[in-house]
């Protein structure tokens, strides 16, 4: 039982997150990219796998992914022309042709204008989003964490222990 308890605590700890604003921001940024890209592509799953390999906060990843998935189709008027331009831009064409012939890559559906547009939009906005969210988490992280974890549901789900504060981490 000890081993399972340890595993559960480790899982809860990871969800509660490390209080580093950068990790929270990374989770939010990767979640945004996952959310924006249509799910019938292999790309969100690849990004999700990449997120698992980093120390990104899984909770912000999950919340961000859900939020951007619901608002993602609203961005189609931007992502479709953007993806169309990228895919039909002649200098890039040899690269796309080469990618078309690489096994597994076609499952990413990168030749779809919305997928490509969402990817480009996600990648392009990742640095500003990361920087902005890191700053926000730095300034308002503690208040946000208290808001999130100081309720009955959160306590029931992940226990009563309070997350570490910014100062405790540093």
């Amino acid at each position: 039982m000890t081993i399972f308890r340890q595993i559960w605590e480790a899982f809860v700890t990871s969800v509660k997150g490390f209080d580093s604003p950068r990790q929270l921001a990374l989770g939010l940024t990767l979640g945004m990219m996952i959310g924006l890209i249509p799910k019938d592509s292999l790309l969100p799953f690849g990004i999700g796998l990449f997120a698992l390999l980093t120390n990104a906060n899984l909770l912000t990843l999950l919340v961000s992914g859900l939020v951007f998935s619901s608002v993602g189709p609203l961005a189609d008027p931007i992502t479709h022309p953007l993806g169309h331009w990228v895919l039909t831009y002649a200098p890039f064409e040899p690269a796309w042709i080469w990618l078309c012939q690489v096994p597994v890559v076609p499952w990413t559906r990168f030749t779809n204008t919305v997928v490509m547009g969402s990817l480009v939009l996600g990648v392009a906005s990742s640095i500003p989003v990361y920087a902005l969210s890191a700053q926000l988490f730095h300034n308002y992280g503690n208040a946000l964490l208290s808001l999130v974890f100081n309720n009955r549901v959160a306590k029931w789900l992940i226990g009563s222990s309070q997350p570490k504060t910014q100062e405790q981490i540093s």
Partner: protein
Amino acid sequence: MMRLSYLIPRLIILSLFVLAVWAGSDPLIQRAVIKNMENAIGAKVEIAQLRTSSNKQKLFVKQLAIADPRDPLKNMIQADMVYLELDPQSLLERRIVIENSQTSQVVFNAPRTKPGSLDGSSSSHSDQPSWQPKSFEPIETLGRRWLDQLPISNELPPAQNHFSLLVTAKTYNDFWTKELASQKQSISALRSRTKKLKSVAENNLQNPLRPNKLDSGSVFTEVTAKSQLLSKNLIELENALLKHRTALKAAYKNDLSKLSQPRDSASFDGEAVTKLLLTKAEEKNINEIVEWFHWFRSALPDPHSDFRPSSERGENIVFQRANPKPKFLIKTINLAGEGRFANRHASFAGSANHLTSQPELHDQPASFELRAQGGEHHIILTCVLDRRGDSWKDTLKITCPDLEIDGQQLGERNSMLVTLGPQSRIQAEVDLQAIDDQLSGNVIFRHSNVSLHVDQLNDLAGGSTAALRMNQAIGNLKRFETRVEIGGTVDDYTYKLESDLGEQFAKLANGALSDDNENTERKRKLALKQVYDRQIEKLEKEVIPQIRELAQLLEDEVYEIANIKDIIPSSNSRLPRIR
């Protein structure tokens, strides 16, 4: 270095994900297949169960039903069991290529209980009316036309009572009977008158004081005139005799020439007989063949117009230089089922090849190769549907090496009705092409072991007597070949029928009727000669002796009158008349 508390939950999530994918792959694949196919076709796809092999390269599908996007109340195809073998290399390229597949209990166009459209409506997407068998001229019109084209010379030789010899003979016979009797009567009257004149003259001579009141002079003059008239009549009769002979001879010659007149023996025209006998029968076959072709052409939906893919976010850019290939391709699907071929229930087996949702990206046209077998019957069918270019190029080839057909009636009751007996066999070769809607090609039917019998024949064509004679002759007709050239469009096709049946039939029938005519002609000539000879004999043995006899009688009377002439002047001059 990443801490264990980071790693463990991530490993757990990954493991759970992999486990979920591995354990739930079949339902996931089933859902994915249904979703993708529905999106591609635009109609409901139902799969009762889907199982995959351990390496995910083989799929077993139970109770597959794909609704027809053009007619939601029908299934385009349904099968009890489908086994699919996927090409793994193509899967890596996000293409579903089915290398080989087996099906069982395949049914095409089966009705559905619930609408198969994705929006649940039962209205048909297709604006085109379903194909209807083409109807050409009614058989009654063909029969009437056949009768109309029968040549006038087909009339039989004149009937015996229409011979002019007989008419002439009868006329003169009546004439002779009447004239000879009249002459005889006149001569008798002359004789009695002469006799009286003679007795008066002799009496006057013996007793001049008691002369007879009768004026012997005037009587003598009358009798003389009468005898002269009768002589003249007899001469006229002799002339009439000559005329009679000449008339009989002329009539006989005329009748002979009528009988010998060259008659067009082609009572039946081959082409017209072919049209009458085969048009309806072959029309039915051609309708069925074109219907098959139509069915095959419509069985393969047009991805550009029939499929209604679900709206997708964005647009898929196709890079032509990347040598794109179809996303969905069935290289071979083996079919086995049951259906109707050539109006017979038959089990069929074969394959459909190169079926794809993007034919323009594939190097092979779609094709169906089917072999239908029902009892001894055997039909091989190959249909190629080439939708790779801008225009559709489809071909249908059917070979039927040997098919026994049921007895059937050919022609039409009011003109000529012929029974094609059972157990006749047919060998068929069909070769049709269609470029877009333009149809061309030909169909060859080779009939063998044929037995024909004329059941009914219109009186204009000789009636039952001629039918009887024809039946004796057409028993020799054992095989014939029909060639049909097809043109026009698939929905409104035309055809031209050529067959040696008509020629053979007409030749045999005309031969039989011609032989019959010759026999009749010979008999009639003989009868005519007998009539002529009898008439001449009658003239020589009956009329001429009677004329001679009358002439003799008249001559006696003339002699008698001449004697009386000697007596009359003396009797009148013996004493002067007392005043």
